[in-house]
């Protein structure tokens, strides 16, 4: 079957097998390997992408369900090869160690900050509770997300 979807702003038509997950299409058909598989059952969040504004586990979504929808992956966060604020904070504050959880963590945090630009630390913890990190113990990730949120709050009109 043919799947039509927009990924990081680019429209794609991809021939897929109906059993493929969105994760497979992103990684294997579109070569977007920034989205990771850590468990394939919705527990680790390494596969998180944003579909029409919502952070979702791409291992739990059939590719066919993405028909006509707009998907943002980690590769779409920083168009042009730069870093957005959240990515920079992750790097600066030690929120990245092995980095395997990082893309999914960034996607969940990005979706959170888009809808709740000034989350409390409990909001951050709850929003990222579906993203496992085995290396950092989460503190540095919390710092990174919180620092972006604080800056948003300090901005005039923010």
């Amino acid at each position, binding site marked *: 079957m043919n799947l039509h979807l927009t990924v990081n702003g680019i429209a794609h038509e991809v021939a897929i097998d109906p059993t493929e997950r969105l994760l497979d299409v992103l990684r294997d058909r579109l070569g977007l390997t920034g989205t990771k598989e850590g468990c394939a059952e919705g527990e680790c969040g*390494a596969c998180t992408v944003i579909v029409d504004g919502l952070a979702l586990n791409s291992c739990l979504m059939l590719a066919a369900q993405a028909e006509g929808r707009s998907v943002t992956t980690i590769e779409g966060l920083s168009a042009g090869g730069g870093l957005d604020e959240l990515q920079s904070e992750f790097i600066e504050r030690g929120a990245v160690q092995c980095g395997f959880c990082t893309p999914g963590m960034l996607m969940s945090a990005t979706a959170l900050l888009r809808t709740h630009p000034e989350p409390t630390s409990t909001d951050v913890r709850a929003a990222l509770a579906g993203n496992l990190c085995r290396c950092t113990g989460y503190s540095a990730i919390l710092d990174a997300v919180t620092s972006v949120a604080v800056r948003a709050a300090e901005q005039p009109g923010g």
Partner: protein
Amino acid sequence: MTDTDLGTAAATFDGTHSGLAGRLGDSVARPDGVPKAQGSYQFSGDLTADGFLWGATLRSPHPYARIVRIDVSGAWKIDGVAAVITAEDVPGKATYGLISQDQPVFASDIVRFHGEPVAAVAADHPETCRRALAAIVVEYEVLTPLTDPEQAVDGSFPPIHPDGNIVRHQRIIRGDQSIEGPIIVEGTYEMGRQDQAFLGLEAALAIPAPGGAGVELYVATQWLHEDRKQIAACLGMPEDNVRLVLGGVGGAFGAREDISLQVHTCMLALRTGRPVKIQYDRAESFHGHVHRHPCTVWMRHHAGTDGRIRRIEARFLFDGGAYASTSSAVLINGITHTQGPYQCENATVHGWAVRTNNLPSGAMRGFGVVQAAFAHEGQMDKLAAAVGVDPVEIRLRNAMQRGDRLITGQVVDNVAPVARLIRETAALPLPTQPVGGTDHDPMRLPGGAGRTADERHIVRGIGWGVGIKNLMYSEAFDDFSTARVRLADGVASVKFATVEVGQGFITIVGQIARTVLGVGEVVLETIDTQIGSAGSTSASRQTWMSGGAVDGACRLVRERLFELVAAKYQLAAVQLEIDGTDVVDTLGTLRIPVAEATAGILIEETFEHHHVPTEDLDEDGQGNCHTAFAFVAHRAVVDVDPELGLVKVVQIATAQDVGRALNPLSVVGQIEGGIAQGVGLAVMEELLQVNGIVKNATFTDYLLPTFLDMPDVVISLVEEPDPHAPMGAKGVGEPPTVSSTPAVVAAIRDALGKDLHRVPVRPSDICF
């Protein structure tokens, strides 16, 4: 395919993106942070090659069975299958292993654990592989498994392996064996099987050389050269024909110390003449790598009425599972740390590491010392109660100091600020929020908002854990690491085989080079076997060992640079120094940038760093078997729901003996991450086996600490540079896991007034 196509671990950086100074002691950001945050960093599972095939492994459904017959003909009938291999096809040595080579590449006659590899296939698609594996017929005669390690010790179970059921026994007999009391406390402590649960699953890509003369393997591992040695032996090839390149590693924590898919991937590539990639899924990962040893420790402490330890008796039983892996070394680590960070002159210790039909056990962060610490810290609290002092006081009274002896007779000749660590931890602030918080946010309660915890019934407890951890390898192993540094045109290129697993070694390489050589830009070359071994990324050893090698090579290069500058300007080399990015004459006015001094020339030096030699233990467990030691203290605060059996770890305070924090950001990251794993072991993580069958090989049922489970961590870095450590820095990776677990359990005991002697603590342990 060139290096750079797949040279995932190679990175170039100049530190400028971080906006921070990049020298030793600075909190420098990781050089691979940008690609990791952009999703472009290639983990081993992200690698592909033109025309590659997928590989997959058939595993035993039984923990112990005789293989009567294997019929692979069905697999060959499936379109797209390119190779089917079994034990018969192993070209070289049939077995492998880190210390003794007792584990078959594929089981041929007997399977000894649930999930042992029996065959492998290569095919055009993972789905074809799955169907091919399903089409292989293996007829088993199921045997009754040995699952109780006591049966291995008492000899009541026939040998399940030609090497027997006891991997190793060692005793430690020291001092006056007749000392009894007057205060005696005793306990038995059990630890379940913890999984390393790195997030980046096992994956490798093998590329055969034309004609099958050799193979290149891109793999996430911990020790490239040791892997190569074992792989080459099994392939029946000279080591020179096998090149290993580090694929990006998504965490390790000990689970990648042993071979898993390496030989299988190479065999399939050589058999098909095409690149082959194997990628485990989570369930296969749980079966496919070694775990932390389940362990039972009995201890009896004899002390004076002042609580000072007079003698310790102990018995350790480590369940090594089906194959030896590193069990013999884990055993020695466990028993030699019986006393913990406390003075003790007299000891009677027996330890066994045994073989069972459970999953093979091997390395995990803390390596045998975690098991010892859970026991000795439980004992210290019992001792405190018996003599009527608090947990801090009992530990201070017994605190080890530099110059004290271990029960092996070895003098602890490292900085040993145990009392200071305890005091600094005690001085760290306690949580400001009461149970449930002033805002009564149910998310603060054990079990969170979705549970029915009644805030009024929640009890808070505080507990302590203090630890000692050996650093580097032990028992006479000639441990070394190699680094090569090239300096030209003001740029340093550093080559090493040190595996970066996420811990941040590659960050300090740049810091060392900038500090010693005054360069701005540091290029890290591809991490592979095209240079001497670096040893394993384990045992908290790489900052000391490979950091020492990079530092040594940089110093040699600097000497040569000074000689060149001295000759040119007719000065004595000894009067030259690096100041910032310049070479300066300390006695005169000369100041030239390193970039200028090295324009058009190349200086290259290689350095091998060895640590001090260590010895084997004698029959009575005496000998200088360890290299160095680090210390740590933890204080845990927990809230417990006694009705539902739920625990919320609220805060961990810790002071850690780090020697010198070369990169405080990295050190703090190691501490926070290590504590998370200690908390997981304390209250949730256990891989369950029933009659040898694995019951929870998924992230749904093997519970890991999430963002909501992780306590606040408050940290004090105790920096007393160690005179034996290159750059004064001790390894920092393992101590956080050593005594955080006992601290959490002590806090739960404190909350409930109940004796808990097993981790992870289960709801039923709390409620009944």
